[in-house]
């Protein structure tokens, strides 16, 4: 297993620090060559418009899609990462950006994740809302009746940021995907 973080923009360092807690190192991924060397990729939070542009410029969008479809890449996306996975057609969900409002509506929540006997603290920062999921998507956690952590095959994604609260549960689930 080789873990990489898509390091164009956003909270790359916060994801790295969670992996460090788990005694794992992570590579920065900014090129096709660097992508070829990883089996697990984290698409961090940030601005989906910005990260999306960089993915397009570098051709990483196409290659990530191919590798997830051929089953050679696992991907974890938080917030902007989830939006991008849905946009690439890898996560069959309808996502509304900034659906909770502007920064003044950002909030913290404790989430119960299915199959895990503990609460996970996470920050929702100008967060997106999942308004619909296809049957192929498994909802792993909800907050106020809205899906916030979902899985589809090799993809794990959340609309919130456990990495900002020092929580490693989501990352442990990701590294355990088979």
């Amino acid at each position: 297993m080789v873990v990489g973080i898509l390091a164009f923009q956003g909270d790359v360092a916060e994801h790295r620090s969670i992996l460090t807690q788990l005694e794992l190192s992570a590579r920065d991924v900014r090129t096709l060559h660097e992508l070829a060397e990883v089996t697990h990729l984290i698409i961090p939070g940030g601005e989906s418009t910005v990260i999306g542009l960089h993915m397009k410029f570098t051709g990483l969008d196409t290659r990530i899609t191919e590798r997830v479809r051929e089953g050679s890449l696992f991907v974890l996306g938080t917030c902007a990462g989830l939006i991008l996975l849905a946009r690439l057609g890898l996560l069959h969900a309808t996502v509304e950006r900034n659906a909770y409002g502007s920064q003044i509506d950002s909030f913290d929540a404790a989430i119960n994740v299915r199959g895990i006997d503990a609460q996970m603290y996470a920050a929702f920062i100008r967060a997106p809302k999942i308004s619909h999921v296809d049957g192929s998507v498994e909802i792993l956690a909800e907050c106020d009746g809205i899906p916030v952590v979902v899985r589809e095959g090799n993809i794990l994604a959340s609309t919130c940021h456990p990495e900002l609260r020092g929580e490693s549960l989501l990352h442990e689930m990701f590294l355990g995907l088979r």
Partner: protein
Amino acid sequence: MIPATYSSLGRDLAAMLKGGVIMDVVSAEQAKLAETAGASAVMALERVPADIRRDGGVARMSDPSLIKEIQASVTIPVMAKIRIGHTTEARILEALKVDFIDESEVLTPADPFDHVDKTKFAIPFVCGARNLGEALRRIQEGAAMIRTKGEAGTGNVIEAVRHLKEIQRDIASLKLMTESERRDRAVMYRVPAELVEQVCTLGRLPVVTFVAGGIATPADAALLMQLGAEGVFVGSGIFKSESPARTAAAIVLATTHFEDSMKLAEVSTNLPKPMQGLEIAALETRLQERGW
């Protein structure tokens, strides 16, 4: 739900901006151009710093109608500026639900004694600083993010480099001090000793640190990223260049690929003319000296 403090949520939004470029815009049209070029946020204002410098007069918070138009035109965070110490302008921006307030030396200061008490607000603030003392006073007042002041509206990067290095040198010097010397330093900075200890342990500021003031080319942005900045504000540098769309896109690429010289050479090639730029020694007004 667990009670979140606004201060932690503000720092969280700052974390989301890292590695990005925040661009000054004066219209909805410019905001869209900035978003399309890859800005991670826009700063809504009536005049870019170069024009404020040229026109003179008192520079104030923008008209809410302009801010609302810009908010309606983009999905990325919208920031707006208030005058130093102008708590009421800050309340107005909070009511408008801007995502971040910049208490900025680019506008004419409103309070000769105090900066805004930023702990009393539900939205985060970014503030300028030239050195560690200024940065820590702003953080103590509740700033969720710091940017170097640089010298806005000049297209001259030297002051941004100076201020980033001053902060880094001040932090490095803390490591060489005894605890009692650091307590003296905290008194000198007018901040609690605990904050100085925290900075010494972290080896950096406890909030996201961007650079601003005089960045005009992709190479300028990459230089500051190489020096340790976590992102870049570009004010006049984009819309005072010959082709704002191309300049903006090139600065975005350079900020992300700051370690890749080949890429930097590529994005710097055949660029439209950057803003002309001013010599610091020839300036009548140094905006960086506003605030304390």
